[in-house]
């Protein structure tokens, strides 16, 4: 059995500044060793530890989709020691990727269902992975209606703009893009917070409709009652959590909340499950 | 604590006293060189099992 703490060596293939304020960059990695990409078989919603020897590791959601081959992609917010270092790295630099880790969005179980994807800020990464997966020609027909509500602080902070534009034009996905506020007169999409937009744009709940949510705590907090109001039952609201993690494999103990280990038993939980877990912040 | 006395020195130098600064630095450098390399408080590669 392989050492689960050992990262696959990768090379940085491209770095794209993802937002106007340069706080987010998208890194595309290619695996150095043949066969590692196959071993790193992942599903949307999973994460990986980006491992920079000499600096440490950080858990980051996988932004690329399993349908995209030849690379793996992460969008990283500059915040701590490791991410700051990563933001200063160059194309061609060598580092490691360890994973895939955690569970994924239960897309297999959602076949035949309508899905509304609600995301905000830089938590959109694994949702991007999900959308790309769902829209793949081989997959699209297996799912019902797809709605996407995505909010950012302002137009400059929107991730994956080019892709959003393309998706916007398609007729097999309903995009509802919003910003908190903008003084850009040419902004043609929604203005307002995600919960507000969800209230007016999200489809009404029915037996066949599921919501997938990922975003900052405030957005989650205020969107939950909106979904309640729309009639979504809690087993149909799927959420992704984050916590401080180190090992990513449920052993080091720090991400323990209730009887779950966020890194292994999660990060994806239904709201129904979360009701039985302490919200440590309180 | 076990660090040799000569390795620590306090001096009072005004920003205008450039020559004194140079002299003090020279003198401290000399005296530290005389003591040789510091074996204490120098962390070699971290010792872990």
């Amino acid at each position: 059995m392989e050492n689960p703490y050992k990262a696959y060596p990768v090379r940085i293939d491209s770095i794209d500044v993802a937002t106007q304020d340069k706080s987010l960059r998208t890194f595309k990695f290619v695996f150095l060793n043949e066969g590692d990409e196959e071993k790193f078989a992942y599903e949307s919603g999973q994460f990986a530890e980006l491992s920079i020897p000499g600096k440490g590791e950080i858990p980051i959601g996988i932004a690329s989709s399993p349908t995209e081959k030849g690379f793996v992609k992460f969008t990283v917010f500059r915040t701590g020691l490791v991410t700051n270092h990563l933001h200063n790295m160059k194309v061609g630099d060598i580092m490691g990727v360890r994973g895939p880790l955690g569970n994924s969005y239960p897309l297999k179980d959602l076949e035949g269902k309508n899905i509304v994807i609600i995301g905000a800020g830089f938590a959109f990464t694994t949702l991007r992975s999900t959308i790309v997966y769902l829209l793949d020609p081989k997959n699209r027909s297996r799912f019902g209606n797809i709605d996407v509500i995505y909010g950012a602080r302002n137009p400059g902070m929107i991730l994956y703009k080019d892709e959003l534009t393309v998706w916007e034009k398609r007729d097999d996905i309903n995009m509802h893009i919003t910003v908190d506020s903008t003084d850009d007169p040419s902004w043609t999409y929604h203005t307002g917070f995600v919960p507000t937009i969800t209230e007016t744009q999200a489809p009404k709940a029915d037996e066949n409709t599921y919501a997938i949510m990922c975003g900052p705590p405030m957005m989650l907090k205020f969107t939950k009652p909106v979904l309640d109001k729309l009639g979504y039952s809690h087993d149909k609201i799927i959420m992704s959590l984050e916590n401080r993690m180190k090992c990513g494999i449920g052993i080091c103990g720090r991400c323990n909340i209730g009887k779950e280990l966020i890194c292994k038993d999660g990060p994806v939980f239904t709201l129904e499950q979360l009701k039985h877990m302490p919200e440590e912040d309180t | 604590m076990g660090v040799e006395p000569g390795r620590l020195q306090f001096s009072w130098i005004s920003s205008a006293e450039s020559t004194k600064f140079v002299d003090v630095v020279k003198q401290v450098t000399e005296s530290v060189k005389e003591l040789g390399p510091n074996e204490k408080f120098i962390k070699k590669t971290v010792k872990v099992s």
Partner: protein
Amino acid sequence: MNETLSIRANIMKVINIDKEKWASGVESLTSTYRLFGPVKEDDSHNFKELKKGELPDLAYGNSKLSPKSAVFPPSEAMFTYSLDEKNENHHILNDVKKDYSPRAVLGIRPCDAKAVSLVRMNFDTKEYRDPYWMDAFEATTFVGLACDNPCSTCFCTSTGCGPFSEEGLDVLLVENGNAYIAKALTAKGEKLMDAAGFKTAGDDSAIAAKKAAAEAKITASIETDKLSEKVIMDLYDAPIWDDISFSCINCCTCTYACPTCWCFDIQDENKGLSGVRMRNWDSCMTPLFTMHGSGHNPRSQKKQRVRQRFMHKLKYFLDKYQKGIMCVGCGRCVQQCPVNIDIRTVSKKMNDYVAAS
């Protein structure tokens, strides 16, 4: 349980070890085993790797720190790496060569051995096997020493363990006058007895009475009987935590001394252009444990951290594995806590708590 018993019944062998032959037996072990055992330092004992010719000091109550370090050192190297871009393999993790040759922990107390088997559930899961802990564990033969004189803070009999408990042991030694009665409980244990040259068949009929006598000496207990029926969120929200946590100074004494605490941190440390990725014991008592990179800390308050520790030991673990609480009743935290926070008191408060309906 039944399954374990039957395996034991097949292997179990009783051997008589004359105390006069103990030293030479231990000596013979050194050719095949790295030996760990209790060593007296100042006024307390701790488990250390024994030097050539050194005998474990078996005249002891229990060690100050638990013997978990024999398989889970406070600091342990995981990988090395080079940061020198001239080096072909720079920024790539290299395995660290480790000595997983057979080792034996001599004189471990039954509570600490049971703790090892509890902790194993964390390091050996169906999805992942922790190579460092498991390789060390598999290399180790645990030779236990039954407790004839438990401490006043011992409460092992109420944690599903006991002074003569065999769980997690390969050999159980019972002191009997000038001899040890040795029960070889596993194939590993038999092998070690062979290697030591301990072959004289023995008689374990004296054990039952000694066991009963030792158990009778344990008067302390922990109340846990109603914990499994409690609802996590009720206990979590119970108004008991302010009082429980008030005195806590958030040091790591309880977690470091505890044989069932396993949390660790992963750190890279560099010297020049090379470095080591290692793991170090960590503790849920420190704010850093849960501090996010953003500076946000979901458990920034002392009360939250104290609650986490006791909830994890007494409720989350119980619910997750259905194998009892994550405590073997060794009493170290009770003895060593600088402010006398007592897990037995806490457990009682949790056990007695009834949520207002």
